[in-house]
């Protein structure tokens, strides 16, 4: 399986994890380790930046695990940029998952503010991974603005509905010059495998693992599904056929 890069960092695992919604920090840690993930996102608002011993961060201290702070809670570009600077200072990373959802109901990403913030943050040297709608034009605009990857949603965040935006994801993957990470809505390992088969560079999963009956076992299942899907993509999937191949092709007469 080919490794892939975001910015100048190479990843073996194409499964990224969220850290919310777990029943305990210990369970979160075990699930992350079981998933083999090398990049986990953590909400700035959940972390106590003033103590050295934040309970969440204490459970994420592993050599292979990189932190991806996110700006969940920001309602506009200004708030997100401010939060990003704090995160960079406190967590000593210039990586950032940019989340701007002014709507607390469905947590729909604000395209306009996200584009604005990406442009500013990229100029400030951040590795920006913006959470967005599966909007192919927006993805190209973000590339122009200096984004390091795009994170289009598969379906509403936390909905576990899978790849409802599949037609747009295919266009995004086809056109993108930066890594495409399918971010929200992935509900089961088969969704993740499907995303990888489409050619997505990675997937980010949270609710489907955290809320599963056995989060650790589910993390393993996702790990395997992502590997399987990626291998299938690299192996070049055989084309689908809607009907059996005709035994007497229309052109047989040419060779008679």
């Amino acid at each position, binding site marked *: 399986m080919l490794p892939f890069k975001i910015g100048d960092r190479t990843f073996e695992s194409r499964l990224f994890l969220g850290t*919310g*919604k*777990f*029943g*305990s*920090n210990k369970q979160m840690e075990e699930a992350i380790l079981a998933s083999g993930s090398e990049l986990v996102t953590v909400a*700035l*608002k*959940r*972390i*106590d*930046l003033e103590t050295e011993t934040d309970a969440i961060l204490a459970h994420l201290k592993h050599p292979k695990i990189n932190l991806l702070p996110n700006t969940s*809670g*920001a*309602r506009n570009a*200004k*708030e997100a940029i*401010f*939060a990003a600077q*704090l995160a960079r200072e406190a967590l000593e990373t210039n990586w950032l998952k940019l989340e701007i959802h*002014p*709507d*607390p*109901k*469905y947590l729909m990403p604000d395209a306009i503010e996200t584009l604005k913030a990406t442009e500013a943050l990229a100029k400030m040297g951040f590795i920006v991974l913006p959470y967005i709608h599966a909007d192919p034009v927006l993805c190209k605009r973000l590339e122009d603005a200096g984004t390091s990857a795009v994170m289009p949603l598969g379906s509403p965040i*936390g*909905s*576990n509905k899978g790849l409802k935006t599949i037609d747009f994801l295919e266009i995004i993957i086809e056109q993108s010059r930066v890594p495409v990470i399918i971010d929200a809505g992935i509900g089961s390992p088969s969704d993740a495998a499907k995303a990888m088969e489409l050619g997505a560079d990675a997937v980010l999963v949270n*609710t489907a693992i*955290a*809320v599963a009956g056995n989060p650790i076992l589910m993390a393993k299942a996702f790990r395997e599904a992502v590997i399987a899907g990626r291998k299938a993509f690299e192996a070049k999937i055989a084309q689908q056929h809607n009907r059996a191949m005709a035994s007497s092709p229309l052109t047989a007469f040419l060779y008679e």
Partner: protein
Amino acid sequence: MNTFKSVFDNYDWDTIQSKIYQTTPKDVERALAKNKRNLDDFLVFISPAAQPYLEQMAQQAHELTQKRFGKTIQMYAPLYLSNECQNICTYCGFSLDNKIKRKTLTENEITLEIEVLKKARFDHVLLVTGEANHTVNIHYFLKTIAQIKNNFSTISAEVQPLSTEEYEQLHNAGIYSILVYQETYHRDVYKQYHTKGKKSNFDFRLETPDRVGTAGIHKIGLGVLLGLEDWRTDSFFNALHLDYLQKTYWQTKYAVSFPRLRPAEGVIDPNFIMDDTDLTQLICAYRLWNEDLEISLSTRENEKFRDNIIPIAITSMSAGSKTNPGGYVVDSQSLEQFEISDERSASEIAQVISSKGYEPVWKDWDRSYTKID
């Protein structure tokens, strides 16, 4: 300004009430089978007809809550700043006509009180007062917020209704959420319980969440005082209010609480009894209707109920609460607003939450998001 009043005035209490009581089992089954639900479904779920379906409702509520909020419970503690009050509310311990010693915490006293809360790990504090505009007003609030804002990531307030400009000042000062309960949406009954003071103005209170929303406050909490009137009808109007607000101030989060009338000194007994089955039904109904609504349960409720409701639909809990100003350390004998029922400490509650497979969350907000200039 267009407010909830323009929506509210189109509804009639008796019509809604009879609609609730005429709901049939078929209506309940139809609503249970739906994926997307609206207020009509909420009305069905709070009806007597839905009560035999309570286990099914609870199962669905459990799944929806976990999907949205995960296995987490947010922790907060109230800090009663004052029991001074110019209102007469016949159910409340702070009522003006209740001859008790009045107290408003000074800066030093607040320092002592919050030390106790910080030791108990709290990072979300809910400031509570009566209504005494001469002494406990916007200046007092701003001073208090400035004093404590480095101690808590989240500061909420449950104080007298204020003006839009005052809410803007609170927002800029770092207040995250405002709780304001209508108590009852029955206009005439409201008058009977709120006989004197600014609070007797039903419409001014009804339009308060609009002012909070206009000011850009991050979260608004609503509720009715369960026991004043028929809880089913009152809760429908509370949901109607939430529905309106959620569509109007769409960048704001919403929460609902369930204050059930509890005994307090010199106050009346509840007129309408709401038992534990009713309260469970109401909590489930809110969740089945509104997946993203935060649902809070205070220490008014007893241990058994609190422990068992955790996995159903609750998203935040208070613990170790004192409902009197200075109650944590300064003056533990001052008069309380109501008697609490669950007297366990914050760490005991956190242990209960963990034992249910849930993570007690102490911090879920960062001051850096609150108003940046």
